[in-house]
């Protein structure tokens, strides 16, 4: 509650153009916003650029903020909109011939051993493979820890739709992780049956 009060006070000052208050707000949220955008885009530099743009909008659009929702939700909503717009821009620009497209995820192999350093990489790859429609609510819920109601407010969607997308997104991730595990097991079995060449 106190944090929210602080946020609101900072926003009131930012509305008047107070750069000190703006710096304080940035210090509070910059890491979370960068991490959220990194999980969504998979590109650190792009995430930093989008985060900077997010905070610029926070400063210049502060007068449009209404204290009916937490400041964090408002900032994340701006970041999510920017990320979606950027993704659309990239998908329009990227015209790769179908022959050159490889399914890099299914070619990868990993185990579900927590000590496996490739596990997290593969989880990240699965997350990147997920359609943004599902990826965004899944990240907001499972990485950032927002409630479904807050996510619904941010994305301007009904709560039921958000619930369904989170559930569907998790289902896809689980399925792909299991597929990857089966590929790994099959590869290990094939290695076991392989012929060994005699040493010279």
């Amino acid at each position, binding site marked *: 509650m106190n944090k929210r009060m602080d946020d609101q006070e900072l926003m009131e000052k930012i509305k008047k153009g107070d750069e000190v208050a703006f710096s304080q707000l*940035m210090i509070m949220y910059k*890491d979370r916003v960068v991490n959220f955008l990194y999980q969504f885009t998979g590109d650190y530099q792009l995430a*930093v650029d989008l*985060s900077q743009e997010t905070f610029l909008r926070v400063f210049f659009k502060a007068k449009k903020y209404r204290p009916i929702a937490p400041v964090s939700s408002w900032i994340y909503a701006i970041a999510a909109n920017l990320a979606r717009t950027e993704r659309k821009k990239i998908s329009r620009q990227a015209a790769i011939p179908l022959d050159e497209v490889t399914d890099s995820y299914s070619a990868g192999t990993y185990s*579900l051993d927590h000590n496996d350093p490739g596990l997290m990489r593969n*989880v990240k790859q699965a997350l990147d493979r997920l359609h943004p429609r599902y990826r965004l609510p899944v990240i907001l819920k499972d990485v950032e820890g927002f409630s479904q109601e807050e996510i619904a407010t941010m994305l301007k969607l009904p709560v039921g739709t958000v619930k369904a997308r989170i559930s569907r997104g998790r289902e896809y991730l*689980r399925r792909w*992780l299991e597929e990857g595990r089966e590929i790994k097991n099959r590869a290990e079995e094939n290695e076991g049956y392989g012929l060994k060449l005699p040493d010279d």
Partner: protein
Amino acid sequence: MEEKKYISQLPVVEAPPGFESQVLARVRDRKVRAVRRRRWEFGLAGVGAVAVAVVVLISPGIKQPEYSARQVKTDNSSLETIQVMEPLNLENEMRRATDDPQTVFILEKVSDQPLIQQVRY
């Protein structure tokens, strides 16, 4: 629920050092650009208004009124007022009026039928 656990364990990244100062620099840059843009807009609007005024005043297609209120004022101020006294012979005027034949209009009712009659085909 494994996938949820794995997602929450994904490596967390942080903002690079100097993030705030970069954003603040961009904020100031945008403010300066906004001021410049506003000046440009005002300047262009002013130039446009002057251009329209010049075109309206100089354009030969637009006909000036022959005698405007401004001209009347300037004429009155620059010229002396001369009072003209013209003799008028009212006797002649009256005589001419009496010589004219006088017309008398007699209004008479010429029919008992109503003015608007029903038309039959």
